């Protein structure tokens, strides 16, 4: 098994929390992991991405080669497109539908057309997150929607999500777990 994923989004969207959850689910399964992220100036609405590599054999490079990623999972449609050169020919894009328009003249139609041309799985993560109780949990919805493609079961994420939000109290844990499960079910529907 080998699974190379690029997680992407805009600073503040919780991309690194998604990576945290996948990392810890993978640790519990005994997979080999490498996960490379760019911190830096992300707190001010810039593009954020992380290369996440899972395998049942040792992993060498911290970075994924162009043309070899299995998935791009993105919290934002334009950010999903930014990494298409990393995807392998049959690679899949899973993205949240909601654009973050903190740039001038955001070409929404062109973005959506390019995503559709690549048969991207587009998730209305914001709507499901609101249903769970907070739009901030959209990253957990997207994670839930993406795991059917990843070498995991939904149950693998209970513990990592609980530990991710433990410091914010049990309500926050419950809300984020709900968002995650809405994401999982939304995909199966």
């Amino acid at each position, binding site marked *: 098994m080998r699974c190379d994923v690029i997680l992407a989004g805009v600073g503040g969207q919780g991309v690194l929390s998604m990576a945290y959850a996948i*990392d810890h689910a993978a640790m519990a399964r005994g997979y080999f*992991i*490498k996960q490379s992220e*760019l911190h830096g*100036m992300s707190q001010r609405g810039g593009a954020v991405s992380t290369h996440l590599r899972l395998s049942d054999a040792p992993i060498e490079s*911290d970075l994924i080669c162009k043309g070899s990623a299995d998935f791009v999972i993105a919290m934002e449609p*334009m950010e999903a497109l930014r990494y298409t050169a990393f995807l392998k020919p049959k690679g899949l894009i899973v993205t949240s539908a909601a654009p973050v328009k903190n*740039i001038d003249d955001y070409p929404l139609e062109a973005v959506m*057309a390019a995503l559709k041309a690549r048969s991207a799985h587009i998730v209305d993560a914001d709507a499901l997150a609101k249903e769970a109780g907070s739009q901030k949990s959209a990253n957990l919805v997207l994670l839930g929607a993406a795991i059917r493609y990843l070498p995991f079961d939904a149950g693998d994420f209970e513990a990592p999500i609980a530990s991710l939000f433990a410091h914010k109290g049990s309500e926050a844990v419950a809300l984020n777990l709900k968002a995650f499960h809405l994401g999982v079910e939304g995909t199966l529907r």
Partner: protein
Amino acid sequence: MKLLLGDEAVGQAAIDSGIASVNGYPGTPSTEIFEYIEAAAKKDPGLRIHAEWAANEKVAYEQALGASYVGQRSLVTMKHVGLNVAADPFVNSALVGAKGGIVLCVADDPSMHSSQNEQDSRYYAQFAKLPCFEPATQQDCYDFTRLAFELSERLSLPVVVRMVTRLAHSRAPVSISDPAMRNPLSPAEDRNHWALLPALSRKLYDELLMKQALLEKESEGDVNPLVMNPAFPSSATCGKVGVIVSGIAYNYFREVFPKDAPSHLKVGLYPAPLQKVKALLEACDTVCILEEGYPFLEQTLQGQLQGHFAPQFKGRLTGHLPMSGELSPDLVARSFASLGLCDPLPAIDEADDVKAALRPRPPKLCPGCPHVDTYRMIKALRESVQPLPVFGDIGCYTLGFYPPHQGIDACLCMGASISMAKGASDAGQRPVLAVIGDSTFGHSGLTGLLTAARENTPMTVMILDNSTTAMTGAQKSLETGDPLMQSILGLGVDPEHVKIVCPLPQHHEANVEILKAEVAYEGLSVVISRRACVKLRK
């Protein structure tokens, strides 16, 4: 096993090495090393680790030397340009050596993800004649830092661990070994070893030169493994190919050759092992050099081997790899494909429809950021006062260079705003403005302001006091609020010309009037623009 960033693995190793203190100034990509130790020390006071940010890197390094003097171990952390600031104590510390182990972990930023330049710290280690470890993996980060403390005490030398962004910020499981005992407190007894007076320094320098042979011996050991593989197919154009590879480039190399790899020397400790290099060269027609940063090995080895060999190196200097920017598995694969040693990667070009849909998404000042209002003030000021050169500095507020703010015209290195503005004023330019953040002022603005205060230089300094070191993730700032005001007055700035404004839209007009008056004043004035970073409120 613990899942750790490269930075965190260094931090964990330092804790397990029994450090008494961690000393540093924030700077991407080094910040997480300090913060990891800081969090651990807070959680477990039993560790007895002093973990407070220093005013700057020079102070941090000198603190570590003090700990070393009394026999305690300590870690110093900074980003690459921080070592420019700490260069004086760093280079001199090679002569005094170390009693308690002292390890400097310095993080370079090839490709300048969040830095002014991509200088390579290995040159500093070489310049100071100090050993330098360079980890490739997170496990190396842990193991090499442990080794570094041990080596530091064994050879009585400060030791460098060089990181790069991609390793600093990449996570993998790391296995942890047993912690070391904390050293007893025992001040140095040999006074002659700690005072760099010329007569003593000459002796100490000879000692340092003698130690180089020990370093070379160390470097020929297992830490720099040489793997020979004579059966590996030759290149049609370059014959037998060998590889010298260091740091994270090793991971890219093994990505390209996961099983059967050409003969290679992995350099994890500098100075590089010359005997092993020679053995590799004897067996090969061409040697590819893969290193992150400047062509350090390529250049150094070229010089050291002159006369013995005429090595056919291929690296950044020969154009085999690009001269600037970080390496990637793609670049490494392409470089070997060009020698016919692996399959070429498919050329992946961005499709036209994707190109048409992409826009850059650079970082911006947060909505509600106090700096936005400050730059509005400067813009309004510049509408009536022209020309008005504005010398900026480094922090979140550097983003004010870009539209729509365009509030600063220059930015060089921490603290340069004040000294450059003074230089421009001295040269006859009036009026001039300097813009500097509170943490940067504490880092290296004080000395510039002191100089200007003694001469009452006609210039205006704006200090953007947002109560924190925001750029690097909101670390404590030493020059904010009342202490900042006390420092300014203490340096001798005329209290009549020290003003505080609050950067909020409702005060805009009044603030601009205050600025105008201070800029018109024929002497030194300071305007503190004070409002907390909005990220702090969360």
